[in-house]
């Protein structure tokens, strides 16, 4: 249960260690972070909570499978900041998927967690996503 006014984030990734590190870093920034390791858990979380921020792994289960979920999150929570984590160097196809799914930003998941969360929160505030 989160406190009134506390912001909620949804983190979707198949790697539990990455989820846990992101969750801890976001907790420090005042977020309650709900984690999901697969599509069905993420969809269940969407039906149960409101989110102000969401980060989805692009290759959830299979290459590119995270993009449609990110698009669903943007539709479900139009005021939320939705970003995608990419495993490799940014590719043209990834950037265009981000635009066309309405995702606000893409980050490399190899970025150190503290830097990733700091950039993510700063981009989120700039886009009015919180």
């Amino acid at each position, binding site marked *: 249960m989160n406190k009134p006014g506390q912001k909620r984030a949804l983190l979707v990734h198949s790697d539990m260690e990455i989820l846990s590190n992101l969750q801890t870093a976001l907790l420090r920034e005042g977020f309650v972070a709900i984690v999901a390791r697969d599509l069905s858990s993420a969809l269940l979380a969407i039906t149960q909570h409101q989110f102000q921020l969401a980060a989805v792994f692009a290759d959830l289960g299979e290459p590119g499978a995270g993009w449609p979920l990110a698009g669903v999150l943007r539709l479900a929570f139009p005021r939320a900041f939705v970003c995608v984590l990419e495993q490799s160097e*940014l590719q*043209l196809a990834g*950037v*265009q998927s981000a*635009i*066309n799914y309405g995702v*606000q*930003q*893409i980050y490399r998941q190899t970025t150190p967690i503290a830097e990733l969360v700091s950039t993510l929160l700063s981009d989120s505030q700039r*886009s009015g996503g919180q």
Partner: protein
Amino acid sequence: MIKSSNSRVSHPDPTTRPFHLLLVDDESSVLQTLRMVLENEGYQVMTAESCAQALTLLQKDSSFDGVITDLNMEEEDIGLEVARIALQTKPRPVVIVLTGFASLANSRQALDLGIDYMAHKPVELSDLLPALSRLVSRRRESDSQ
């Protein structure tokens, strides 16, 4: 060049006023064909044949609900300038960029600007029209909230 499609697309809601679009492309044939297609879909379309002309129209008239612009016109990637100015308009229009010359750099710029959709040339109407319709519906919903 525009590719036609047999797939059905949803039309803008006829009970509301027509969605007012600014269409920008320096290829006259693309401009006129897309204009015809979009008007046939129920949109009200104004055209510009250059970035400069588009910027003049955007400064004069802030009532555009959507802006569809080519990327390369007078200069490479100049369509991003049309997109940037359009995105500063209040209320913010839906912004779509059409390009046959997408690169990581210009796509990244488009993402950072916050454009709503990027379509490849030759334009696939089966992609563009549903995307436009979806974005229009979303905009109408957010306007009514």
